[in-house]
């Protein structure tokens, strides 16, 4: 498997607090990698650094052969092809579901390409298709703020589908979902993973078990362990820090 993402000694520091401490991560192309770890372990910070939201205090990020360290988020998204779904989810509230998706077009995102330009037909068609895939065809005209929580999460995943990046980062895609919704989301993500690389940050171990193959565990800004899920679940260091011995998430003291 070709390596598509690599971080070298990536570090982030906020007022003396090292949120990330020399993190070395390698993800292969087409892989579905899950990143777990207790709250404050630095998972979201790691995603922030990769997507350009925050500048690292040290280290480098390489994507698809390019050094993307410190580049602005819009360049990382448009030029290099990394898409991100936020923990929120983060949507365009007072715009319809369809409009949310239409905004996620991969090519029509510069001023010259949008000034007085209409929506290309293929974009509208693709949006319709994605709406079907995320089960929101009926709600195409509804405002994002009117959707249920689970639907909002799916809408943002739909935006990623529209965007079609080479690598997708999903930050807690099942947060706040019911068990059934979680399962559906898992299926969505698995279907996505085939064509592209997917990084999932998660807490819900049932969900992790549903989708994960390789798992990276972060703790206190460092990579604690990495490997196939079965090994991770049994790794004593991980168990001590994160999982209870029966494989369920431990209450972090």
């Amino acid at each position, binding site marked *: 498997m070709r390596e598509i993402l690599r971080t070298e000694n990536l570090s982030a520091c906020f007022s003396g607090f090292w949120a990330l401490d020399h993190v070395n991560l390698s993800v292969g192309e087409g892989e579905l990698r899950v990143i777990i770890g207790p709250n404050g372990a630095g998972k979201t910070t790691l995603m922030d650094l990769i997507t350009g939201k925050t500048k690292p205090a040290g280290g480098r990020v390489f994507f698809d052969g390019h050094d993307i360290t410190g580049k602005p988020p*819009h360049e990382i998204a448009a030029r290099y092809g990394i898409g991100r779904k*936020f923990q929120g989810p983060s*949507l365009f509230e007072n*715009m319809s579901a369809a409009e949310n998706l239409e*905004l996620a077009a991969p090519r*029509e995102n510069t*001023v010259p390409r949008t*000034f*007085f330009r209409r929506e290309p037909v293929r974009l509208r068609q693709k949006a319709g298709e994605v709406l079907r895939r995320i089960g929101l065809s009926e709600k195409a005209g509804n405002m994002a703020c*009117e959707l249920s929580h689970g639907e909002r999460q799916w809408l943002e995943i739909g935006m990623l589908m529209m965007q079609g990046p080479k690598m997708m980062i999903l930050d807690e895609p099942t947060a706040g979902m019911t068990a059934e919704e979680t399962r559906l989301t898992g299926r969505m993500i698995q279907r996505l993973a085939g064509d592209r690389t997917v990084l999932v940050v998660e807490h819900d171990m049932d969900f992790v078990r549903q989708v994960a193959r390789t798992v990276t565990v972060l703790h206190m800004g460092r990579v604690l362990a990495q490997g196939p899920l079965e090994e991770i679940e049994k790794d004593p260091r991980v168990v001590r820090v994160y999982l209870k011995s029966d494989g369920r998430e431990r209450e972090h003291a």
Partner: protein
Amino acid sequence: MTRLAKIPAGRYLDFALFLALGLFPLTGLLFYTQLLQKYLVFLIFAYSLDLLWGYAGLMDLGHAVLFGMGGYLMALSLSAQNGVPEFMARYGVREVPAWLAAIVPLPAAVLAGILIPALFAGLLGRFLFSSRVGGVFFSVITLALAQVFNLFIQSQQKYTGGFNGIGGLPGLALFGRPLDLVQGYYLVFAVVLLVYAFCRGLTASRFGLVLRGIRENGARLEFLGYDPARFKTAVFMVSGALAGLAGVLYVPVNGMIAPNDVGMEFSTAAIVWLAIGGRGNLTGAALGAMLVNVVGNALSENFGAYWQLLLGAVLLAVVFFAPQGITGALARPARGSGRSKGKGMARRA
């Protein structure tokens, strides 16, 4: 569904408004026609602010500065048609300065009045938006800009007529022939329709979609590959151009321009029009501008300062009971259950 039913309700209001405005001169009420002519210019100003604030979410508290740039350039041009203007001569200016000579030809003045505010907005925008300057900062900076610009205009009496402004200017003329009131009215009306069509086209395009995205969640757009700074600068420039155009038209219509027209007062007046009328749909901007000015004119004749007081109170009431303005309040029943989340101006990290 007939095609008629697919037209958004706002367009009916627009149509009604334009119909009323278009037919008004036929009533023969010349005094009010002249007043409405001025308000037509205000419509252009309101549309320009709506693009910036209603669609992109950038609350410009100093929008009159862009208006004033266009206005003063036009005023200077008109006053220098026959050589050195009187108010400059009083300060010992013997020759028409080169920059003024350049804009004496009216087409040049119009062009300058549109392009210079646009360029200024572009520079300011490039400077401001490329950092993580959030909405509140933008408002504060534009407020300060209004004050500084006002002071600047007043201080340059030699060239701007200072506190008294530039007055005694000729009215509208086309190809050298002066127009009478009704002709001038329809000229301005035609420009308003063109501006309206332009704004409708722009906001209906993908550009408009992105602007609304910036308003709703500018930070999120970055991760979809958009550079919000570029879009903000672009809309600021367009808005500046339109505001400048309004300024250019204002001067022959009003006959004069003064520092009061280019400072905080006029800037915040437009904010009030949009707050009351509703923003982000163009209809509200026109509605608010017309309503506030027409009612204001009627009331202030009799009640003076009380009108302003009432306006302040109405503004407060609107913020509490109809934060999306009149058009927002009208739109909600049509939407059914959905409650729009009042989207504030999130300060970016």
